[in-house]
């Protein structure tokens, strides 16, 4: 059997699975940000009509998946796998949603890297002929993450300037081999990242903890495919925030593969007005890259504004326990290369 790997870490997907339906549901604060109009729905408040924040996150998750499946012209019964995760202990948002949906479920935990992790796996499942249509989803909620990782909401503590704000939102994408509607994009390649830890232990500076993993995955993908930053219309990281963004630029400069400033964007820096909305270094959470990809970038690929992008969600793999025990924060980043359906031909 012919191996589809290229180089050390990258996988080529010759059948170019299609991204066909996108759902992005966000909270109020995200709706007030610069991308507010791009999302499918903006919740009126943090509870989203539910009794608890956990239930609200699950509702956002289910609604994003429903919307994505509908837009792809499919029904849940036609979906063969749900690949999803979130930030809560035992990924309860994803697994409890899977209980309601009845779709065979592959639960993922990649911290904030879950969206691109699920797209990588979806691409491989489809290209390998193990499924025709799957749905990928990831979510986070400011209030559920805050109580699990930090302090109660009403506790009056001060955030340092390097801290990030967890995005309330869920994003879902249908990936299929048999598009029923005009595809949004195609997955060309994916690169599963290594876990990299350069000794950052400050949970209030996750951008710094994740930037080395992001650089490592980028360099691997470039090396494996013989491409460089100039070959992509956009290189998009998930939630490095201002500190991680600057550190990634510096790491790539030092590795002599400098990123092109105007083509490199971070979802965490796009989703809020950082000054007015008081979010310090930017947004974070699974929902950050999931909603920005589905709400903002996929439509731009569909209409041809962008031809080829490198989308890479980044995750910080610590837990409250590991932080309390003084462990450093391992980072991870998975990358997918997405191409516009208007590009024609193959890369």
């Amino acid at each position, binding site marked *: 059997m012919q191996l589809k790997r290229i180089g050390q870490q990258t996988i080529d997907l010759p059948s170019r699975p299609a991204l066909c339906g996108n759902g992005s549901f966000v909270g109020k604060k995200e709706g007030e940000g610069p991308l507010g109009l791009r999302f499918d729905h903006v919740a009126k408040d943090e509870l989203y009509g539910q009794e608890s924040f956990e239930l609200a996150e699950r509702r956002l998750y289910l609604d994003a998946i429903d919307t994505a499946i509908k837009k792809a012209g499919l029904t849940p019964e036609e979906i063969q796998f749900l690949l999803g995760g979130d930030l809560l202990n035992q990924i309860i948002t994803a697994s409890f949603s899977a209980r309601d949906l009845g779709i065979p479920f592959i639960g993922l935990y990649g911290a904030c890297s879950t969206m691109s992790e699920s797209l990588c796996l979806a691409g491989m499942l489809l290209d390998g002929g193990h499924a025709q249509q799957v749905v990928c989803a990831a979510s986070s909620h400011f209030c559920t993450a805050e109580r699990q990782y930090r302090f109660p909401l009403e*506790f*009056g503590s*001060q955030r340092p*300037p390097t801290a990030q704000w967890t995005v309330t939102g869920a994003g879902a994408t249908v990936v299929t081999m048999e598009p029923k509607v005009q595809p949004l994009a195609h997955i060309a390649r994916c690169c599963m990242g290594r876990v990299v830890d350069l*000794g*950052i232990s400050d949970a209030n500076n996750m951008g710094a903890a994740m930037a*080395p993993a992001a650089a490592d995955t980028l360099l691997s993908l470039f090396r494996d495919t013989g491409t460089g930053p100039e070959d992509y219309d956009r290189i998009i990281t998930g939630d490095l925030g201002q500190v991680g963004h*600057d*550190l990634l630029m510096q790491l790539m400069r030092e590795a002599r593969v400098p990123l092109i400033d105007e083509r490199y964007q971070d979802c965490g820096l796009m989703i809020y007005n950082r000054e007015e909305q008081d979010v310090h270094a930017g947004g974070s959470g699974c929902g950050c890259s999931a909603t920005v990809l589905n709400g903002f970038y996929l439509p731009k690929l569909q209409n041809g504004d962008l031809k080829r992008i490198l989308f890479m969600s980044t995750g910080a793999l610590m837990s409250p326990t590991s932080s309390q025990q003084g462990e450093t924060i391992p980072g991870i980043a998975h990358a997918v290369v997405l191409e516009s359906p208007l590009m024609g031909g193959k890369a």
Partner: protein
Amino acid sequence: MNKQRIHTDPQYYSRMTDKFSPPSKSGKCLFRAFWVGGLICVLGQAIADVGANLLKMSTRDASTLASITLVFLTAVLTGIGVFDKIGQYAGAGSFVPITGFANAMVSPALEFRREGLVLGLGAKLFTIAGPVLVYGIGTSVLVGMIYALFGL
């Protein structure tokens, strides 16, 4: 183009991180903490003076009145979602006075109510204030024993 690797020396990266991480603006933070903290103390003193002069309380009772009133006000402000905003602005200014302690008790009570009265509220009530109480009371016991032994 052949040396495409990142530096993997944690010390080197730590220095680099420090360079790119904006520090807290200590001048601004100090000023905010100073005026808010000072204002809370002035308020406490005013309540104590009202107690002592108008209500003819003993000094001890008057200062208890000040503490109780500040704790009550903080609890209300925490409950209506205002105190965390004051805390974000003032930092230690609102945290160091007794207001910080009240907030540290009320905020987990609100937060974990959903998990029930026993395993939620009951178990999590002291998650923030707990360490202060344990070591505060522990230290006072120790000091008390020294005091009793040596009869200072």
